[in-house]
């Protein structure tokens, strides 16, 4: 789960990492009020949970409370990558001497957390990794030992600092690592972390993504997990999550649903292979209940772009006749009239196929044939 910039920054502040003085505003009036209590010049920043708000015009500078209010008004009207801007964060502009990067994330290959620092800040770290790999310093974190003060100082040294500034920067790194562990961070980063002209370090932008599987430890965030505008999820993704389904919206017209992430991904790939275009990824998981299948259907069938629905069920332990009945029931409930192609195999598959065929649904026993037929149906329209 992504947190807003201002939330991430408030957490940093709690751990003693300097952030620019600032305040949240959800209206131009509030923005002006906030600015009055801060020192100009100001930065007004859209609080949205997608990257690239700068390029979209979601960050503006102002030298007076009035100007701040004006910019806030503009930004508060915006939609950035389909996400509405409900709030802006107004903060004091920092005198930048140098922009750095520091973050903590997981390292899959080494099965541990990793600290990443870079002498180049303010751009995506992946971009730096591609263009300037030698500017990046990584330290794997021993799970039993943790990220220690001397690890932090060594990284500060490697991004170019010595003496007192190295010590100071090391402390900032170490504090972030503590915050990241405390918040089960999938990613926590300061980018840019600014060395000011006055010789201190300030986190000018911050990101925190909490491990979804650990969100139960943070009830304050968990409770808004399904609130629109409060997470990075689209309304469709939110209703899928609510039903315990994995859903990703795509660009195409073939609605796809199946049981098991790998199987659904492979179904998407097969559709693409045969020249079709998936409208979504929808995984009902292993032991999906009838309610979940119905919810899944609703999501698929209310997507107006859909020309055909492709269902891929590898029954395993589930009984195919039950799946077949569930599908028919769900179809009736949501009053769906578009064509459906189903691949259904597993226990009691004969009975299952009979039920569906009688209801006029294409039933196949190969995933690839089903994908091929779905593509043909979609083209045939």
């Amino acid at each position, binding site marked *: 789960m992504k947190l807003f910039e201002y939330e991430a920054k408030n957490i940093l502040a709690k751990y003693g990492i300097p952030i620019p003085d600032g305040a949240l505003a959800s209206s131009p009036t509030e923005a002006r009020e906030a600015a009055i209590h801060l020192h100009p010049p100001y930065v007004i920043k859209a609080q949205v949970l997608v990257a690239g708000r700068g390029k979209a015009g979601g960050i503006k500078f102002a030298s007076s409370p009035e100007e701040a209010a004006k910019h806030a008004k503009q930004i508060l009207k915006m939609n950035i990558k389909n996400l509405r801007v409900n709030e802006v964060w107004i903060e004091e502009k920092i005198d930048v001497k140098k922009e750095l990067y520091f973050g903590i994330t997981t390292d*899959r290959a080494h099965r541990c957390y990793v600290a990443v620092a870079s002498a180049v800040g303010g751009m995506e770290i992946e971009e730096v990794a591609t263009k300037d790999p030698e500017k990046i310093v990584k330290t794997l974190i021993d799970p039993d030992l943790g990220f220690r003060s001397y690890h932090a100082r060594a990284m500060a040294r490697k991004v170019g600092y010595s003496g007192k500034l190295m010590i100071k920067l090391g402390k900032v790194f170490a504090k972030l690592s503590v915050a990241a562990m405390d918040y089960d961070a999938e990613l926590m980063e300061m980018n840019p972390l600014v060395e000011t002209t006055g010789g201190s370090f300030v986190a000018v932008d911050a990101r925190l993504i909490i491990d979804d599987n*650990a969100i*139960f430890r943070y009830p304050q965030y968990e409770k808004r997990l399904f609130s629109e505008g409060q997470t990075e999820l689209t309304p469709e993704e939110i209703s899928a999550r609510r039903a315990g389904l994995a859903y*990703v919206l*795509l660009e195409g017209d073939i609605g796809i649903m199946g049981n098991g*992430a790998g199987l659904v*991904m492979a179904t998407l*790939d097969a559709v693409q292979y045969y020249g079709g275009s998936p409208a979504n990824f929808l995984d009902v998981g292993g032991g999906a209940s009838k309610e979940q299948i119905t919810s899944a259907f609703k999501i698929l069938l209310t997507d107006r772009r859909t020309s055909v629905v492709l269902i891929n069920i*590898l029954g395993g332990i589930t009984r195919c006749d039950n799946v077949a009945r569930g599908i028919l029931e769900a179809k009736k409930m949501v009053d769906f009239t578009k064509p459906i192609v189903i691949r259904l195999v597993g226990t009691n598959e004969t009975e299952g196929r009979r039920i569906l065929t009688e209801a006029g649904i294409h039933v196949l026993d190969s995933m690839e044939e089903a994908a091929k037929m779905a593509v043909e149906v979609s083209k045939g329209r």
Partner: protein
Amino acid sequence: MGIIINRDTKVVVQGITGLQGSFHTRLMLDYGTLIVAGVTPGKGGTEVHGIPVYDSVSEAVERYGATASMIFVPAPFASEAALEAMEANIKTVVLITEHIPVRNTIQILAYAKRQGVRVIGPNTPGIITPEDCKLGIMPAHVFARGEVGIASRSGTLTYEIAAELTKAGFGQSTCLGLGGDPIVGLSFVDTLKMFEQDKQTRAVVLIGEIGGNAEEQAAEYISFNLKSKSSPLRIVAFVAGRAAPIGKRMGHAGAIVMGKTGTAKSKIEAFRKAGVKVAEKPSDIPKLLAEKI
């Protein structure tokens, strides 16, 4: 033979009294798995399908010499269960549980390394050596005994591919799910090393998906160690998620392309560079295996 488990592996089921635990214990017993005990704290002294239940793993280990554990415990308690098993000297842990926080998984795996334990998962369907032993939740009927090893990051896709192989006459030595989480215990490389040593296994199918770089690492390992014609293993790969967009989790916590990292393209290229045939679709896998033979 096969790898990791066999018909003599003595198994404890942690969380045996739960819905899933009890259901799959029945199926595993039917398959012939040697389940010696179950563990559910507070339920010690009861029985499930005739299997005695204990309060702790150490009791089961002391009494029956169990060496493997299946964990069906819900996520908030699963990492404690895994640590308990490892401290009790269990050497193979199959962690079925999904949704374990990564922070806990990291701790589990650090401890596993110290204790010399093989962890399969988390978020795995388990491991099966057809006709010998099943430590998992996979539908048994799609598997048949044979010479092909499977290591996979996906559950249902493994069943799909195993079924294709079985249909085409390729039985399996051992099939295991590495787990759908970003951080898991056994890797493709670990399993390749084991399959190399296994006399039954003559070919391996690696089933990858987007996210991370486990496939790239496998490709590197293969190109340094298994590329030569004299290598006893034929390897075929499949990678799911070519159609997946950037930055979205495709069902599995671990199936996500971050920036340029973890794309299906990168993995497929890496395999091909290492001389591994990559199947376009699951049904191509038997053909590629046949070509190679």
